[in-house]
């Protein structure tokens, strides 16, 4: 039986402590993260074919080596105002139907100890909290871990 780590221990992360890997990316000055297991691959700009009459947060479809994927305008999906173009594709794979999330910039892969993964606060300024699964306080900023289920609309 694994016991949750205590507060004091978590301050100095060690290799023995259980941690999780996250892919991070930027969108409207927020640093977001998704667990690596969710992400299939990251791709620079791919041609997007718009699909008229689709929901507003759907940018269109992309051709990923012959497979047609839905491209989600992540900023719109989670209620963010984005100023820069979001050209990078974070491809997440779920139920045989991969999706591309469009982001502005892809960041580092971060290893975060489980103990430092916290429940989200009640409010995050400028962000719809329902899409946030967890947060983690990095030295310089807040890492927002997104809830894939919610983004997929399940």
């Amino acid at each position, binding site marked *: 039986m694994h016991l949750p780590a205590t507060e004091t221990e978590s301050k100095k992360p060690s290799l023995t402590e259980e941690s999780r890997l996250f892919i991070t990316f930027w969108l409207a000055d927020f640093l977001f993260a998704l667990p690596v297991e969710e992400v299939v691959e990251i791709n620079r700009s791919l*041609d997007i*074919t*718009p*699909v*008229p*009459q*689709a*929901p507003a947060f*759907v940018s269109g*479809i*992309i*051709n990923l080596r*012959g*497979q*047609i*994927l*839905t491209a*989600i305008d992540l900023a719109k999906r989670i209620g963010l105002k984005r100023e820069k173009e979001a050209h990078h594709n974070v491809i997440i794979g779920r139920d045989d*139907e991969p*999706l591309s999330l469009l982001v502005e910039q892809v960041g580092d892969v971060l290893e975060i100890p489980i103990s430092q993964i916290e429940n989200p606060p009640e409010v995050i300024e400028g962000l719809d909290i329902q899409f946030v699964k967890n947060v983690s306080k990095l030295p310089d900023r807040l890492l927002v871990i997104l809830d894939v289920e919610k983004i997929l*609309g399940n």
Partner: protein
Amino acid sequence: MGFEEDVLKDFITEAKENLERLDEEFVELEQRPEDRELLSSIFRTIHTIKGTAGFFGFKTLEAIAHFAEDILSKLRDGLVVADEETIDVLLKAVDYIKAIIAALEETGKEPVDETYLDFLVDLRNFAEKVAKKAEGGGAEEEKASEEKSAKESQEEASSPPEEEKAEEAAKEESPSQKAETKEEKPQEESKSQAETKPQAESKPQTPKPSSPPKKEDKGAPHVHLTETHVRVDVKLLDQLMNLAGELVLSRNRLVQIASRISDAELQNATQNLSLVTTELQEKIMKTRMQPIGNVFNKFPRIVRDLARSTGKKVNLRIEGADTELDRSIIDAIKDPLTHLVRNSIDHGIEDPDTRVQLGKPPVGTLVLRAYHEGGQVVIEIEDDGRGIDVNKVKQKAIERGLITPAEAEKMSDREALALIFKPGFSTAQKVTNISGRGVGMDVVKTNVEKLGGSIDIQTVLGAGTTVRLKIPLTLAIIPALVVTCEGQRYAIPQVSLRELVGLSPETRKNIHQIGDSEFFRLRGEMVPIIRLSKILGLEAESRENESLVILNSGAMDFGLVVDEIWDSEEIVVKPLGKHFKDISIFAGATIMGDGKMALILDVVGISRKIGLKVEDVDRVKEEASKRATLAEDEQQFILLFNVSPEEQFAIPLALVARLDKIKAEKLEFVGGKEIVQYRGRSMPIIRLENYLPIQPLPEQDEYHLLVFAEGEREVAFLVSRIVDSIQTQVKLDERLYQIEGVLGSAIVKGRTTLFLDVYKIIEMQDPYFFVKIVPQEERPYRVLLAEDSPFFRQMIANYLAAAGYDVETAADGLEAWEKLQKEPFDVLVTDIEMPNMTGLELAKKIRADERLAHLPVMALTSLASDEDKRRGLEAGIDEYQVKLERSKVLEALADLLNRKYAQAA
């Protein structure tokens, strides 16, 4: 565990295949209850199931199979004859076996339910009854064929399961042996089958030793056949199909690049790759193809059960069971077909008494037919029942509030039949548990349309109904037309495509705006049109050169206005993600040759979006008839007909005086001429094959007459079928057929059509048919005919020549002008709308020219309005006539010449 699962899977697959065959065989057995071959085959199948069930320890399954086998062995040995009751019980046993197999497939366990045990008891009792009957009734036969046969049958019935049980026991102890025995088992079984066969066969006949080798011959190819086939997982085939699709796309892309680079070696290589890819794709498609028989096989049983429960007698005939279709489509048409067959038996075929009263055979006939036609598969469900009463349909529709009595009044039979497909419609007088299950024909229609197919009903009251489904061969790769709208490409499946219309200022005259809806007048028919940009919800800038794509959604025709029409391409259909499932206007997406994507339009979905009101359509139709007189120049009505069914011909409808039908016996052969008594007079008949190198008219009970009149005289073409009359722009190709009596050829309604020169053909038959109204002169008048349409040019030239004029032709105003400079002519006959120089410009030029100023000029047009005439007169045109009104043209021409030259003289 994994191993056992695999074996179980194999068993289930095999059992399912066998059970399907069983259904069919049982129904056959009912008709030929003494067919030993058939009985042996059924026996073997049940025997195999019993054996395997024993191996897995499925007790209920084994027991049911065991008792069924018991009964069957008695039938097979001829001790009892298969009566209806016996077959009923056996079929029930098959049903229970199916249910257990289904449960095994799902849960891996036998279902625990008392009904199975109850049935088992019934089955055992019945088996005992049969056994007793066999002892009593079959005693004499038994003696004749010695005890041997009885022993054999007992051995067969009892020993194999025991063997297998022993094997099973052995296996449980040593699991490593299982693999070997698994492989051995089928061989053993086939051996035992081969052994049983000759035994069972030879019994009823004389026990000559010469027969066994024959049987072996028969058996040998059977064993051989299984070795040439490999069972492949369907998923693997689907993956292969996808990969082939990818390959096609890569190939397309490579071909595009290669054509840009234009390197001979590269071209060669891509061409080769292209060929191989196409072939590979075809072959892989083939692996997914299955004979439609796989679905049809289910129907003997369904029909039998239905007929019994409704007290009707139905004979099912299956045709074209080997017609192949994509697996996914076969799955999808199962339900619609079942529904249609149920309908035919429930509503169509009458009960035997009624049928006898009507003078029909007591046994109704239901035909299930499949065949390929034009890249599609046609499936027909035909019955010889009571047909559909159109009036009843209308009445019902009024009762259901689907239409108003006034609408019903106006409806054609065809439109009324289409009501059947409306949601909430059922013609059954009473709702039966067979057809009236709340699932209507509308669901059938929707399902068929979802497959990109169409459905059509033909019915003759009192004689029967035929429902015809047209289904594409495959759903994965389809031919599609690529169009653009606001810079994006869209693909339209070719099956829905009717025709393309370029929207020029000229053709735009056919667009009528009524309220919010727009309509296009297509050969007299009002077709609702809608802009693709509007459907897509895009802001569209207005454009000069748009195109109109006329589509058929099954329910109706409609036009889609697109920016541009690109090529036709074979596209690989890829599904869209779930975020798009609420958008009904797309059927999927595809990747084009350049790697970019295009959405595939769902024609049925779009047609629903148009949502037209009936009043709108009515209003438009009225309006259209008012404006019809303003049709533009080159559009004309043509009549399409067949002489032999393979060849299509066309003539201008305006030339035909009447269309009529005659019975074959009305034709007479008098004085070397074929004539027909028509309206109290003898009218000569022209058989076209006597004058043109075409297929002859087939023998028919009734023929169609195309009657032509010249004053009091009449003559008629004898033809087999009137195909249609349509309004179209004829683009005639004169080079392909240079035959006297043929003006040229064109593609009309997807078929090469020969346009006939009616005047020429009539003249060939009777050179004196047409009155020559050439003015009395030493030499014939020289006529210059300027006409850009080759079709009209030839036709007019021919009838002028037939009337005795010397005709010279010019393809446009400019050419006519040049000819006028070189040679003298007595009269100019000219079209108005021509390229390079119009008729009006030509006339003005002539009047301005000193030498030609007095040349008589006659203008010919399709339809002349007063405004046109006024402008013509201003330009110096003396006469205005309609092209197709031959006698008027000739009369006016003679008049004009008389007037001019009498004046001059």
